[in-house]
C-alpha cells in the first residue's frame, strides 16, 4: 500500500489503492503524437510551451537589440539605414514588452500557480490553451510581416499622428496595432485564468493568509492586467480604425486628439511595468525564503506592499506625458504618486535583506541573481524617483537617460529575478538541476554586461542624446560612451549564451534533482520532479503559511475525488472549504481551431473591415464545437445525475 509523493515514501490511507492510482494516471495521461500535441490542455504543457516561445522571442528581441547597439557603436554609422533602424528598434521594444516580458511572467504563473496552491489544473484549461495559441500566432504574425519589410516603425508606443493614416504609409502600423490585439487577448485570457484559479481552486487550508508570495504577486498582476490591457486595446483599435475606416479619434481637425491616444496608451503602459515587475518580486520572495532557510520576514507587509504597488501603479501614467504641458496641479499629483511608489518596493527590499540576515543564506545561483536584482534594480528605481520630478523629467524625458532607466528597471527588476527563477524552478520542471558553474558565469557576465551597457547611457542622455535616433554625428562627442555601451552589449550576449547552453545542456546532463532539491516550503516541491500530469496523487491540505516545513512528517490529504475522470476540487473563496468537485475538460482541438479563426480574423482585419465581420461570425463554429459535450461523457453524466436524484428518495 505504499506509494510516493515526491521521492519520500508516503503511506496512503486504505481508501486509495494502487488500482486507483493507475486509473488516475490513465485519466490524466496526455495523448500521444501530433494529435495529442495540438490538443493538450494541461497547464504544465501549455506553461512549458509558453515559456519556450517567450524565450524564442527573447532571443529575437535580443538580436534586434544587438543590431541597434552595433549601429550606434560609432558616429555616422551606416550599418542600418533610418528605415531599417526604425523597424528594428520598434520590433525590439514590441517584442520585449508584448511577446517576452509579460508572456513569460504569465507563463511561469500558468505552470507554477496550480502546483503552488495544490490543485490539478487551472480553472479553464481550454481557455488557457487558446491564450497560448493566440499569443503564438500573434508572434508569428508580427515576424512574418517583419520579414516582409512591414515591421512596425514607430516605436513600441506608436504615437499618433506619426502612426496615423497620413504619416504612416502601408501596413506597418496596422501590424503593430493588430499584434497588440493578439497579445491583449492572450494576456486577458491568462489573467482571467489566474484570478479565478487562485480564487476558487486553492487546496483546503490555503487561506489568503497562507498564500505563497509568488501566488499573491501573480494574483495581483492578473487583476492589474484585467484593467490595464483594455486600455491599450481601446487605443490600438481606435488607431486601427483611424487607419482603416477613416474615423477621426486622433485627427484634431475633426475634433479628435492625439493626446487621447497617449492617455489610453500610458494608462496601460505604466501598469505594464508593474505587470512585469510584480511577478518578479514574487519570485524573489520565494527564492529568498527558501535559501534563507526561513519564511520571508514580514509576510503581511510584503502582501500589503504588493497590493499598494498594484493600486498606485494605475495612478502614475501621466508622468510619461509631462512634456506635453500637463496642468500644474495634476503635475504635482502625478509627481507625488510616482515618488511614493518607491516606498512599497523599498520596504520589500528591506524585508528581504532582513530575511537574509535572520536566516542562514545558502548562496546558490538563484540567490545570487536575487542579489544582482537588488544591485541593478536599485539604480533603475532611484533614477525612476528622479524622473518623477517634472523639471528633471523635462530634461531627461525621451533621452538615453530614460533608456538607461527603463533597462535598469526591466533587466534589474524582471530579468534578474526571472533568471533566478529559472535556476530555482528548472529542476522542478525538468527533473534535473542546472549547472551551478555555468550559472555563476551567466550571472557575472550579465551583471557586468548590463552595467557596462546601460550605465553610460545615463550620461549620454544628460549630454543630450535623444532616444530613437539612428545615428549621430561625431561632433556630438557621444561616440566613446556609445562604444562602451556596445561592448557591454557584447558581454550580455556572452552571458546569455552561457544561459542558453546551460538550459539545453542540463536537460540531459544536469544532476538529478529529486522532489525537493532546495528543501523549499511551497507545495510544488511536494510532488515529483517533473510533476505528474495530475500534479498530486492526493490533494494536500495546508496547515500553515510555512507549507511543507510545517508538516512534521505527515501530510494531511483530501480523498474522494474521482480518479476515472479529470476532477479537481473547488473550494470556497475565503475559508477554502471544499465546495464541489469540478470535472476538467478532456484534450480538444477547439482552442487551436478557435485561435486560428481569431488569427485569420485579425490578420484579414488589417486589410479590410470585412475580415473582422466575417471572422466574428466564423468564431461561432469553434465556439459551438468547444461547448458541445462529448457523447460518452454526456451519457455518463446523465446516468449519474439520475442515480444521485434517486438516492435521497430511497434514503427517505
Amino acid at each position, binding site marked *: 500500500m505504499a506509494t510516493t509523493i515526491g521521492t519520500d515514501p508516503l503511506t496512503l490511507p486504505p481508501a486509495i489503492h494502487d488500482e486507483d492510482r493507475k486509473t488516475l494516471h490513465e485519466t490524466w495521461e496526455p495523448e500521444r503524437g501530433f494529435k495529442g500535441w495540438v490538443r493538450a490542455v494541461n497547464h504544465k504543457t501549455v506553461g512549458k510551451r509558453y515559456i519556450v516561445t517567450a524565450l524564442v522571442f527573447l532571443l529575437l528581441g535580443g538580436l534586434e537589440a544587438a543590431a541597434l547597439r552595433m549601429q550606434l557603436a560609432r558616429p555616422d554609422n551606416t550599418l542600418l539605414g533610418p*528605415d531599417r533602424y526604425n523597424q528594428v528598434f520598434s520590433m525590439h521594444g514590441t517584442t520585449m514588452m508584448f511577446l517576452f516580458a509579460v508572456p513569460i511572467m504569465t507563463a511561469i504563473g500558468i505552470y507554477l500557480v496550480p502546483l503552488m496552491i495544490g490543485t490539478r489544473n487551472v480553472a479553464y484549461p481550454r481557455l488557457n490553451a487558446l491564450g497560448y495559441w493566440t499569443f503564438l500566432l500573434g508572434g508569428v504574425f508580427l515576424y*512574418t*510581416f517583419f*520579414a*516582409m*519589410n*512591414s515591421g512596425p516603425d514607430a516605436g513600441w508606443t506608436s504615437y499618433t*499622428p506619426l502612426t*496615423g*493614416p*497620413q*504619416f504612416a*504609409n*502601408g*501596413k*506597418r502600423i496596422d501590424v503593430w496595432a493588430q499584434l497588440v490585439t493578439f497579445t491583449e487577448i492572450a494576456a486577458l485570457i491568462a489573467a482571467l485564468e489566474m484570478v479565478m484559479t487562485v480564487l476558487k481552486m486553492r487546496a483546503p487550508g490555503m487561506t489568503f493568509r497562507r498564500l505563497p508570495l509568488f501566488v499573491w504577486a501573480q494574483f495581483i498582476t492578473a487583476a492589474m492586467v484585467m484593467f490595464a490591457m483594455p486600455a491599450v486595446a481601446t487605443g490600438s483599435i481606435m488607431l486601427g480604425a*483611424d*487607419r*482603416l*475606416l*477613416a474615423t*477621426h479619434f486622433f*485627427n*484634431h*481637425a*475633426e475634433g479628435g486628439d492625439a493626446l487621447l491616444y497617449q492617455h489610453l496608451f500610458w494608462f496601460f503602459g505604466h501598469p505594464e511595468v508593474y505587470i512585469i515587475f510584480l511577478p518578479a518580486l514574487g519570485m524573489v520572495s520565494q527564492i529568498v525564503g527558501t535559501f534563507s532557510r526561513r519564511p520571508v520576514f514580514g509576510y503581511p507587509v510584503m502582501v500589503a506592499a504588493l497590493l499598494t504597488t498594484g493600486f498606485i501603479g494605475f495612478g502614475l501614467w501621466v508622468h510619461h506625458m509631462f512634456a506635453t504641458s500637463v496642468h500644474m496641479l495634476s503635475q504635482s499629483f502625478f509627481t507625488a504618486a510616482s515618488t511614493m511608489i518607491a516606498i512599497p518596493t523599498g520596504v520589500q527590499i528591506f524585508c528581504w535583506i532582513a530575511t537574509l540576515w535572520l536566516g542562514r543564506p545558502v548562496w546558490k545561483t538563484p540567490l545570487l541573481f536575487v542579489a544582482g536584482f537588488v544591485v541593478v534594480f536599485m539604480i533603475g528605481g532611484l533614477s525612476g524617483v528622479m524622473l518623477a520630478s517634472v523639471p528633471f523629467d523635462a530634461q531627461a524625458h525621451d533621452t538615453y537617460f530614460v533608456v538607461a532607466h527603463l533597462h535598469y528597471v526591466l533587466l534589474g527588476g524582471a530579468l534578474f529575478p526571472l533568471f533566478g527563477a529559472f535556476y530555482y524552478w528548472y529542476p522542478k520542471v525538468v527533473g534535473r538541476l542546472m549547472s551551478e558553474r555555468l550559472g555563476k558565469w551567466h550571472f557575472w557576465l550579465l551583471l557586468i554586461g548590463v552595467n557596462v551597457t546601460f550605465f553610460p547611457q545615463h550620461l549620454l542622455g544628460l549630454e543630450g542624446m535623444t532616444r530613437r535616433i539612428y545615428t549621430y554625428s561625431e561632433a556630438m562627442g557621444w561616440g566613446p560612451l556609445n562604444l562602451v555601451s556596445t561592448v557591454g552589449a557584447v558581454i550580455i550576449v556572452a552571458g546569455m549564451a552561457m544561459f542558453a547552453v546551460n538550459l539545453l545542456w542540463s536537460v540531459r546532463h544536469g544532476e538529478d534533482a529529486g522532489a525537493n532539491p532546495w528543501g523549499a516550503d511551497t507545495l510544488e516541491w511536494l510532488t515529483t520532479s517533473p510533476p505528474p500530469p495530475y500534479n498530486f496523487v492526493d490533494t494536500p491540505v495546508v496547515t500553515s503559511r510555512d507549507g511543507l516545513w510545517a508538516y512534521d512528517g505527515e501530510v494531511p490529504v483530501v480523498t474522494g475525488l474521482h480518479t476515472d475522470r479529470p476532477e479537481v476540487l473547488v473550494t470556497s473563496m475565503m475559508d477554502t472549504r471544499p465546495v464541489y468537485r469540478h470535472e476538467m475538460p478532456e484534450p480538444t482541438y477547439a482552442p487551436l481551431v478557435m485561435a486560428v479563426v481569431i488569427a485569420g480574423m485579425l490578420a484579414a482585419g488589417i*486589410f479590410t473591415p470585412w475580415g473582422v465581420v466575417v471572422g466574428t461570425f466564423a468564431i461561432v463554429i469553434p465556439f459551438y464545437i468547444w461547448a458541445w459535450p462529448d457523447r460518452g461523457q454526456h451519457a455518463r453524466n446523465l446516468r449519474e445525475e439520475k442515480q444521485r436524484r434517486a438516492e435521497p428518495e430511497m434514503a427517505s
Partner: protein
Amino acid sequence: MSVRFMAISALPVALSLAGCKQENRDFREMPPAATPTEAIRVGELQPGGGPPFDSTVTKYADNAYAIGTGQRLYNQMNCVGCHFHGGGGIGPALMDEQWIYGSDPAQIFKTIVEGRPNGMPSFRNKLDNQQVWQLVAYVRSLSGLGGSTVSSAREDHMYLSPDLAIRSPEKPTRSAPRP
C-alpha cells in the same frame, strides 16, 4: 522532415519578396527614362521592346511609400488648391471615373509634366521624375486605381460638408476601369 522544414522556411522568403515591393522605401533612385514624356505611345507601332514604363508604373502604383509621398506632394504643390482633396473644384475631380486626358499612368505623367489647357500648369523642371511618378501613383489611388492595400484611409484635415452630416468623406469610386 527536412523537406517540410525547407518548405516552411521558403514561405517567409517568398512572402518577403512579395512584401518588399509594397513596403519598400526607395529614397534615392532615378526612374528610367529621364524625359519619359517623349516616349509616350501614340500608335501601335513602337520601336523595339514593349512599353517602357511598365516596371516603373507598377513599382510606384503598389508602393505605400510612393503613394504616401505623392499624397504629401499633392498638398505641398498645392494641387489641393484646384482639385481639392480629390473631389474637384476649380480643377476637375480626381476621384471619379472620368479622365479628360486618360487614366493611363503615362498620360497622367504627361499631364503633370506638360500641363494642360484651361489652367493645369506644367511642372517640367519643377518636380523630378520620381516625384511625378509618386504623384501619379497617388492621383490614381484617389479613384481606386492601383493597390488599395497601400493607400491610406484619410488625412489629418477637415472634411467639410456643412449641410449633410450623414455622408461619406469623399469616397473614391472603386469602379474605375483599369487601363
